[in-house]
């Protein structure tokens, strides 16, 4: 037997970038850019040093959190935030379904696809704060502007994820329903909807969660809700009340986190 004569063939995992010079040039370029970028940041260490005791005083003012003196404002703010969230999530999801279905390349004709994708892109390209500033200018201060902001942002988020989930579906199941002679709506109801439903319920809960947190942010620019209460507390230098509000927000977000996780497990 000539096993001893076996030649050892060399093997290494092929590199991601084939040309060695390109690999090294890209690495060196990235390192150089990072070094230059770091160099352009001006840090005034004296001002950082002077800021430290101010920060300490600022955080000390948070303690102890004061839940009592502004209780009714906090409760009103939270309730307003909650109904804003519920209504905005419901309206946003209802409006995102036709847009999301239209933005799924595998089931929508090309013109509808491009129109719906454009709508999603517009909705997604502006951060909630920018939308909120815009809608507050349009509708004036108050929860209505905040509600419209959240609903509008929900369309972009939910519609895009719905479209992507539809694009990932099993075509065979949908084709089987089409082969029975089903109409388009029946086909969506029987062939598409069951495939995307569990994930979309989970995402609806997740978006509810996001909308509640965003409701605190849009309030700061005039969109009503708990954010408005928080902003007022800061403006009045009532940091202990502000701390109370922040703790309430954290508590509610945590509560929603656990309950949405539980609900998602149930619907799977």
């Amino acid at each position, binding site marked *: 037997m000539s096993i001893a004569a076996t030649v050892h063939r060399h093997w290494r995992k092929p590199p991601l970038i084939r040309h060695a010079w390109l690999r090294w040039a890209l690495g060196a370029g990235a390192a150089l850019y990072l070094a230059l970028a770091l160099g352009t940041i001006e840090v005034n260490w004296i001002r950082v040093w002077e800021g430290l005791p101010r920060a300490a005083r600022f955080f000390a003012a948070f303690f102890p959190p004061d839940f009592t003196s502004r209780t009714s404002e906090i409760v009103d703010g939270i309730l307003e935030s909650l109904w804003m969230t519920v209504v905005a999530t419901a309206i946003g999801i209802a409006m995102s379904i036709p847009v999301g279905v239209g933005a799924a390349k595998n089931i929508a004709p090309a013109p509808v696809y491009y129109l719906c994708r454009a709508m999603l892109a517009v909705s997604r390209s502006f951060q909630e704060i920018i939308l909120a500033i815009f809608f507050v200018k349009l509708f004036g201060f108050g929860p209505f502007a905040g509600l419209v902001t959240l609903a509008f942002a929900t369309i972009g988020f939910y519609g895009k994820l719905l479209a992507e989930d539809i694009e990932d579906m*099993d075509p*065979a*199941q949908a*084709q*089987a*329903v*089409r*082969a*029975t*002679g*089903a*109409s388009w*709506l*029946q*086909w969506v*109801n*029987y*062939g598409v909807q*069951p*495939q995307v*439903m*569990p994930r979309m319920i989970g995402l609806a809960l997740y978006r509810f969660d996001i909308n509640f947190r965003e409701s605190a942010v849009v309030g700061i620019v005039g969109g009503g809700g708990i954010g408005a209460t928080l902003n007022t507390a800061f403006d009045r230098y009532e940091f202990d009340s502000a701390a109370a509000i922040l703790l309430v927000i954290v508590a509610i977000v945590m509560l929603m986190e656990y309950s949405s996780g539980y609900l998602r497990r149930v619907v799977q």
Partner: protein
Amino acid sequence: MLRIRGLTKRYRTGELALRGIDLAVPDGEVMALIGPSGAGKSTVIRCINRLVEPTSGRVALNDTEITTLAGRELRHMRARMGMIFQEYALVERLTVMENVLSGRLGYVGFWRSYLRRFPQADVDEAFRLLGRVGLDQAADKRADELSGGQRQRVGICRALIQNPDLLLVDEPTASLDPKTSRQIMRLIKELCTERGLSAIINIHDVMLAQMFAERIVGLRLGEIVYDGAPNGLTAEVLTRIYGEEDWSATISKVDEDAGEPADSEGTRDTESVIPPDTRQPDRDRMAGLT
């Protein structure tokens, strides 16, 4: 009667899948379509119910031209052709009953189907069909809870509840074990006989095709290269369809199956599908089906 004339399909990739197929399937005939992967078997079936648009050629079912239909008329035509799929293609998150009733979508309006309020006659028929294949107890199970053979039986019920004139069957046994494959093929064959249905069955397994089909059509590179009786599949014919290979094992099997053994085995397997104690009522249901 299904008539296909000069059916040609060129995919957008430029690939010519079918090169002028001519085929006629009389009522009540069970025909197997064999051929290597990529020969165009699935394309033929999908051009008949227009899940794939033919490039040219004509397809007519009972003298109704299918290739020119659109909208509502096309849906009605699809409702008259039951399709059974490779890998079952059940909607996995719907229940068994919803999957079977989805075969009636071509006949009921949107709101009825949306609210799952199907006509009582459809529900009765669904239970009867599920009983026929031994799955009436599983009506409210989710489709993905079933085994492969059970799923394919639900797929058969979905196709039959359409009350079709023609069955289009695409690789029904591709993911089933040999015994279940035979049971499924036998079930399809029996149901076709009961109802006088014609069927086109795409199948990879030459032996199964010979056991259960009355006529075999061999397809190669989008052209029909054999059309005849199951026992006409000689080594020479198989080479024409699939290419050079040692066919002796397949051929010797032909001789066995042509004779007595296949039949006696058939009776045995049918009994194992239907539990002995419920056999009598099932026979009655069967009679009600035809």
